[in-house]
């Protein structure tokens, strides 16, 4: 056995890893069941920072969404990017998309089409969100944006001059944004944004990033970075917070539309969110006596409607990650078994 392990062809390891990743993907894909998530304070801080964007200025939050990643890291980063747009859209924030990576605009388009076009078609381009596209020059772009936004961006990706875009009115430099939300796969990315914008101009910033980058960015939390999502784990935690919150918001919206006052609606929505399975029982209770049947039916629909697949991508990917990590632990143990066996043999000889 030890001899077999000592001379183990690395292709067997590759095969084991392939199975550990492929089998959970298939099982989760077929059954639709994901592994539960417990959010960490980092993900909660990320969520809260976006939730309160613009509040200090008493206005609708203006959020700069910098998507600095490419297809290679999209598997790790696009779930958090999608959840980010989801939260911003639901919260009614103004979204300014941009990228310092040449292929970033495709990543932006993907998020817009999956979230805004499909689920928030009422949002108007130019009033609620704008795509400023890619700008070459790495951190130079950030530096120049800090001085003057229009020097770097004269038009949006469609070629419309910024002066003609309603939501660009009054946006002259980075300091006009309430929050910078960065999704980063490397250079230029979180570090550059922290150094040249968050630190320089004291703008609140949150960032999601790849697993390899995350350890380097922890020092910036909670000073320069107000929230941090690391890899798929962070994405899955944030995704679960956003999904719960969005459903709660929909409950509250339905209750307000049904005539309940806003504070009470929020309180009831939070209660319903704790036990969504018991919504239909609640609609029969005395507390719901004043609601009309249409509102009750809508509440049950919200509680039972499945969460769209694009908002579960992060949680779905935690399955393969779990088995891949377990395999790594097993391989490390096996590697050490071989090591100690060889050392013992060496000692005997």
């Amino acid at each position, binding site marked *: 056995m030890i001899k077999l392990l000592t001379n183990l062809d690395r292709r067997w390891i590759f095969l084991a890893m392939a199975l550990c990743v492929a089998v959970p993907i298939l099982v989760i894909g077929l059954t639709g069941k994901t592994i539960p998530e417990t959010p960490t304070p980092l993900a909660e801080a990320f969520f809260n920072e976006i939730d309160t964007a613009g509040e200090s200025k*008493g206005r609708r939050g203006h959020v700069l969404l910098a998507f600095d990643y490419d297809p290679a890291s999209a598997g790790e980063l696009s779930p958090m990017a999608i959840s980010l747009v989801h939260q911003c859209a639901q919260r009614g924030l103004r979204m300014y998309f941009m990228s310092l990576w040449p292929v970033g605009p495709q990543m932006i388009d993907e998020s817009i089409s999956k979230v805004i076009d499909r689920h928030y078609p009422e949002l108007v381009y130019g009033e609620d969100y704008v795509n400023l596209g890619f700008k070459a020059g790495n951190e130079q772009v950030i530096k120049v944006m800090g001085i003057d936004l229009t020097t770097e961006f004269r038009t949006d990706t469609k070629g419309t001059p910024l002066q003609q875009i309603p939501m660009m009115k009054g946006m002259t430099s980075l300091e006009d944004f309430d929050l910078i939300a960065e999704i980063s796969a490397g250079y230029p990315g979180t570090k550059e944004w922290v150094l040249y914008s968050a630190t320089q101009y004291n703008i609140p910033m949150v960032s999601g990033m790849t697993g390899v980058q995350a350890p380097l960015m922890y020092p910036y939390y909670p000073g320069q970075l107000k929230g941090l999502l690391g890899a798929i784990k962070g994405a899955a935690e944030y995704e679960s917070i956003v999904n719960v919150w969005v459903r709660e918001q929909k409950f509250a919206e339905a209750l307000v539309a049904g005539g309940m006052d806003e504070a009470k609606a929020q309180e009831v929505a939070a209660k319903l969110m704790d036990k969504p399975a018991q919504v239909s029982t609640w609609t029969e209770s005395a507390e719901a006596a004043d609601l009309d049947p249409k509102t009750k039916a809508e509440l049950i629909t919200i509680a039972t409607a499945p969460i769209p697949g694009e908002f579960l991508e992060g949680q779905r990917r935690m399955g393969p990650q779990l088995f891949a990590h377990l395999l790594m632990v097993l391989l490390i143990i096996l590697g050490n078994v071989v090591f100690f066996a060889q050392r013992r043999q060496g000692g005997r000889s």
Partner: protein
Amino acid sequence: MSRVGLRSVLILTTLCTLCASGVVVAAMASNSAAAPPEPPTNLIAVDKPWDGGGVVELEWTASVTPDIKGYEVFVHQMVSPLVGELETNMQADAEAEDQTQEILEGEGVAPEDADQQARVEAENDVTLTTNEPEWTSMGIVLGNELAYTATGLDKATPYVFMVRTIGADSTASANSNITTQLIPVAAWFDGEKLPLFCILGVICGAVFLFVLLARNGMPMKIRTIAGLKAVDEAVGRATEMGRSILYINGIQDMDDLQTVAGVTVLGHVAKTAAEYDAKIEVPTSRSLVMTAARETVQASYFTAARPDAYNPDLIYYVTDEQFGFVAYVSGMMTREKPAACFYMGAFFAESLILAETGNSVGAIQIAGTAQPSQLPFFVAACDYTLIGEEFFAASAYLSGQPDQLGSLKGQDVGKILVGILIIIGVTLATIASATASAPGLAGLHESMTSAVDFLVNTILGS
């Protein structure tokens, strides 16, 4: 309909009529319970001194109304003098043209007089419209705060400011006094960056000083760096095996200092390769790196007295695309099986792919990078790794020139400075934390906390 119902309708109608005529509104305004809060007074705006421009500090005297929610700060951006004059003239020209025609048609005056008269009227009109400020809200501060720092303003445009009180029931007061026009100009030096400037001065000064001392004969010692010592071994092995040496200079451009440091090490590796007559191949991910690498390798071959052996075609551009480059290099490694692989520069996710591929073909591998996230991968898969500053010290180590070794000594002064700052910071923060709840030490706690704040926000924040 009953008599009561009819009376209610009549009262309601009368109320509506009164409301419309403003009587009720005036009556309500006179009622103290529903009255809006009083505005703040003595609003003063001062351009922040010693800044980079675009910042104005506002201060005011509190509103006399008690129990208020806060204050809302408003700004009006005046048209900048030059642009304003131009716009006023253009607008006035356009209006004057229309009015000249009207005057000519209606009043029978001479064309020149009509033109002049219209011009004056038009200018008055435009001045009147531009005098109406367009207030934009900058933000809200709490009721106990009586100051606000307005940031993000244009350095060359005049501004005026105004503040309103927000009452307990969210009603806004009338406008406060409007400040005088103010241009938030930039100072000649950004005072906020003074601590950084001083730190930079000390570190650069130390480097400069030790370079001079080294030139004057002060002995400089540097510890052995295993990774650099192994360069000869790796090149010798490649020569013995009759296989090539692969040198990857990272995947960033020449504006990244790691790439520059990588090119420096390349010079030494190429010189050794030229001496041993080994073949060195340098695929690059940036065109400018290719040009720089060619210059360096050519110079190394000249230094080794082997200019004839230099082949520029072995230093070539592949692609800027990260994984395209990795695919090419991994494929080449698998086919050509180089005996030695050097990875010196800025690397990202490709570090492990390259190092593991190199490991699988049995190459001796030496890596150097200042990307902390990639160091564990290189340490795991390579034989030697230059960690962070060792990589930057490579140039001095390899050249052995006193100038360069002196700069390393100067760098050590920087480390001592950082160490002192860390010790001071940790001590102050610990005392601040320990005295937080100690009775009778509130004064000490407060001064320690403000010292920590100064260190973190002013010195490190610069």
